[in-house]
């Protein structure tokens, strides 16, 4: 049954997942073109100096890319169900409601994570084309909190979308938004090398949290 739910969720989000995928690939194609152009008009040693010494992040515009992806997939997965009250039908499937909700969330998380891993691969490959491997590894470490925030954005969207009461939606939005911003505290490269694991670990609590609005939806408590 759980695999059927996963398949159902895939059918639901595949169009938006595809749109998000194209968006992500598009941004990285632009990154490649942009860097290629930069290395054509500037001396390479100056670009390396700017990147390594001054700390210019040539890939900074991918900062919010996976956040947008997480929001797109989360909204695509849960908003139509909530508006049309179709989610109630899912909750009547012969499977425990909590397991069903977690399974839906797992499906969405997987969707975001796959795009995130592809982003990481594209980032490393493109940066390694123009900079030594230290630069590419650094870009990956720098982008890690941004990529992780995509998962939090997805979970925050799911949490907010499933909540039946408007005032609570705002509370969940504030918690998710506030937590999301924790991954954007630094402007230099590799600033999260020491600290990322702590907010990343705590953010795992978003996964069980989504059970609460689903429970409230099912029981219509206010």
């Amino acid at each position, binding site marked *: 049954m759980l695999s059927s739910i996963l398949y159902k969720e895939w059918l639901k989000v595949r169009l938006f997942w595809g749109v998000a995928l194209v968006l992500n690939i598009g941004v990285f194609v632009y990154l490649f073109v942009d860097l290629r152009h930069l290395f054509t008009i500037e001396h390479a040693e100056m670009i390396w100096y700017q990147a*390594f010494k001054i700390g210019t992040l040539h890939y900074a515009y991918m900062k919010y890319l996976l956040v947008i992806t997480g929001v797109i997939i989360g909204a695509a997965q849960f908003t139509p169900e909530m508006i049309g009250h179709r989610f109630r039908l899912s909750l009547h499937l012969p499977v425990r409601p909590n397991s069903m909700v977690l399974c839906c969330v797992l499906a969405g998380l997987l969707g975001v994570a796959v795009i995130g891993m592809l982003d990481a691969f594209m980032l490393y490959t493109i940066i390694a084309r123009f900079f*030594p491997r230290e630069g590419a590894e650094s870009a990956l470490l720098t982008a890690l909190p941004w990529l992780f925030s995509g998962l939090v954005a997805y979970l925050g969207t799911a949490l907010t979308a499933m909540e039946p009461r408007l005032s609570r939606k705002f509370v969940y939005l504030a918690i998710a938004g506030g937590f999301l911003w924790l991954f954007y505290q630094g402007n230099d*490269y590799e600033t999260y090398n020491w600290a990322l694991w702590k907010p990343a670990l705590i953010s795992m*609590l*978003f996964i069980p949290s989504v059970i609460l609005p689903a429970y409230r939806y099912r029981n219509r408590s206010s």
Partner: protein
Amino acid sequence: MVPRLARYALIVLAIVVMSVYMPFLYHKVSEKKVGKTQLFFSPVIKKFVFREMVGEGHNFVTQDESGNDYDRMTFETLIPFVYYKNMELWGKLPMTIDGRTFDKQTIKENRQVFELKPRMIADRSPRIQVFPLLESKPGVTRLRFPEDAFRMTDRMEFINVDTNTVDQGLTDKFTNAMKQAGFVFPARLTAGRVSILKPFDEGFFVVDANGCTYHVKRVRGEPVVVKTPIPSDLGIRNIKMMENKKKEIYGMLLTNKGDIHLITYDGYGLIKLPLMDYNPDTMDLKLLINPLYRTAVYSDDHTIHAVAMDSRYRPISRYQRVMFSGRTTMADTVFKALFPFWIKTTDKTSGYSRFDVIWNGRLALIGIALSLFFGITVMYARKFSIRKYWPDLAIIMFTGIYGLISVSIIEPER
């Protein structure tokens, strides 16, 4: 049961978010602009003099260590080597101190400032370990970045910046020169000043696997590697290079014990600065060199210390004071009473972000007690059974105002 656990998971998330942003907002609202104290050793009166902001606007005190007040102009006259351009403007140059006469040129040529902030220490900020080795004798007026950069692996590996590939010839040439000088790969520390905005280039100091320090330069394209006599058991943590036309000192060396040494041009001899209570992880250090004295000034957010030295770096006077900016204000006390803890995410002494819980001590019990009182009142008003929802009170007991707000806005299901 599961929805209850889900609620508590959400409450923990809310507490984490609040313990980052509420203290941040509190500081934004309550913080006053109070700059750090400027402290100098006066070669005129042989005392420490300081200028300190003590309130909003331009409310300064300008005093010497004995408590004598000065106006701004007198203060600057007491430290003429710092304000030598004003001295010239005011017609006070050349001036005679201790029987020696100083004109603008003499002062200018004998001044130097070294600075070491915690963020500048190699292990306190990220740095991609790829560096350009500049040509030290470029044969032109300005320094230029080379078309290659090096990394220290099991060899000194040069990468061509245009092709992003290893330059085998240059790599072999420098690696062999390093090995011939006795260098043992891999390097523990690579320290240099990566800039073309300096008067000349002194290359890099590189500490090898055995702790020996080597001076590496590129002179007319050829490697020049010197094994320095710096002791291998010194425990070098950081070297801050500072090329200066005086050519007396290469830079500052920091050891794992927190000692500061100057590396001199005189056979790489070390001069240990006589600093007391210096903590490189929290304190900014400045070494001010003038024609007569050397003054090391170092401070954290609370206390400023200084030691004045003669030209041979022997201490002649010491001073320390709690800065006005380091004094506890009412806003600080209220902060500690209101918030039991806070999460620190930024650190101005480090290039790395943090995520550390900082406890506010016993004063927080006031805020916790008030939060508990409000928590119980709210539960009574909403007709929640305390016996059933005692974990909510336990949360408030440990997290104070954060817990109170969290359990109130994320109500239990009835």
